[in-house]
């Protein structure tokens, strides 16, 4: 069982979309004690401090270990490794998070359709079950890997590591990670991404940001989707932005409709600008 949110992460599987589904990779995931072949020295990490052993003067063989170990430390260590890999290969990685049904996959589809001639994309899809999302991306001829978390409710950095090993993204590309639809747990798990994109649709409540502050706090930008439905709703966009800015004053907003294409151009411009900046930073 995942040691943080209680979901069962045994039986995580990583698959290619149905078109070429001859390669099923079973990945047994043990939460925080997932052992990697080079483990052993990963504890001596500068943000974990170092372990101290004190022997006291009593004769009862008691040892005090100063641990200062974050309960989520293993994921952070793996995320740092992913981040280093992405920086070395200049792969601009984004983590897309939202409630189920906000439109992550639709936004991805429209973005890929419009930009695939200009940029090289790779996609990692995360869902509990099915290859449905990966199949949608695959239909656009974009290389994609589906991670099925089984009972799991979020992606973790070691799943990304395993998926990337199969995906083999080229240098100077864009990697989109579509996380499991969930506004709670994914906020706690660094995947090694450069930017985190929180997506909310206007069919949800304006107070979502203060109900789920950790997610909005951890995001870099917020895409507000389904703008084509605005005439049919009593939705107050300014109220939504106010709530979101209370939690994260640095948040930038994009108002889009994945289905009509409205507003997508600004999101594309941000994407291209950040990609360029990322290349400069990594040079």
């Amino acid at each position, binding site marked *: 069982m995942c*040691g*943080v949110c209680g979901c069962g992460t045994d039986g995580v599987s990583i698959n290619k979309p149905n078109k070429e589904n001859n390669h099923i990779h079973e990945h047994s995931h043990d*939460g925080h004690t997932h052992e990697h072949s080079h483990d052993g020295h990963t504890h001596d990490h500068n943000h974990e401090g170092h372990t101290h052993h004190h022997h006291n003067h009593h004769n009862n063989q008691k*040892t*005090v*270990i100063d*641990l*200062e170990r974050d309960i989520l430390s293993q994921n952070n260590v793996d995320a740092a490794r992913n981040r280093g890999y992405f920086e070395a290969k200049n792969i601009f990685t984004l983590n897309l998070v939202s409630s189920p049904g906000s439109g992550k996959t639709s936004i991805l589809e429209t973005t890929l359709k419009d930009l695939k001639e200009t940029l090289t994309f790779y996609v990692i899809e995360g869902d509990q079950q099915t290859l449905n999302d990966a199949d949608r991306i695959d239909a656009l001829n974009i290389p994609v890997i589906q991670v099925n978390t089984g009972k799991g409710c979020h992606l973790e950095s070691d799943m990304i590591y395993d998926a990337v090993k199969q995906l083999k993204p080229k240098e100077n590309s864009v990697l989109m990670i579509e996380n499991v639809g969930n506004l709670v747990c994914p906020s706690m798990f660094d995947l090694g991404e450069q930017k985190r994109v929180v997506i909310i649709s206007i069919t949800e409540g304006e107070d979502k940001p203060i109900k789920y*502050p950790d997610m909005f706090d951890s995001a870099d930008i917020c895409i507000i989707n389904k703008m084509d439905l605005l005439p049919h709703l009593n939705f107050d966009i300014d109220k939504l932005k106010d709530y979101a800015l209370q939690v994260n*004053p640095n948040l930038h907003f994009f108002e889009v409709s994945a289905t009509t294409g409205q507003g997508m151009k600004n999101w594309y411009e941000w994407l291209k600008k950040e990609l360029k900046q990322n290349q400069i930073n990594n040079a």
Partner: protein
Amino acid sequence: MHELSIAMGIIKIAEKETKKANKTLVERIELEIGSMSGVELSSLEYVWETAVKNTVLENAKLVIDYKEAKAKCLECETEFGLKKMYDSCPKCSSHFKNILQGKELRVKTLEVT
């Protein structure tokens, strides 16, 4: 959050470190938990006894160093206590802040024999 699973995460860390030190039991475990870490202390204490049965933590004394959340305003540098993530500076009402403490969720020390 899910306090039982937090307990299990702590047990995993304790078991690993106890084994590493070539010891068998934990006598005392000190946790550092922030008021905004998402963990309900009373829930954690409630599930602790059941969770640690038959583990290295079974008879360990549980000590929790609870950190009240504190933030520093990025505009006027006032330090203030934080009750909610979206609280603003009591002096200048800005929402731009650095969280100084309150999000800790860690195992601080283990006393093993």
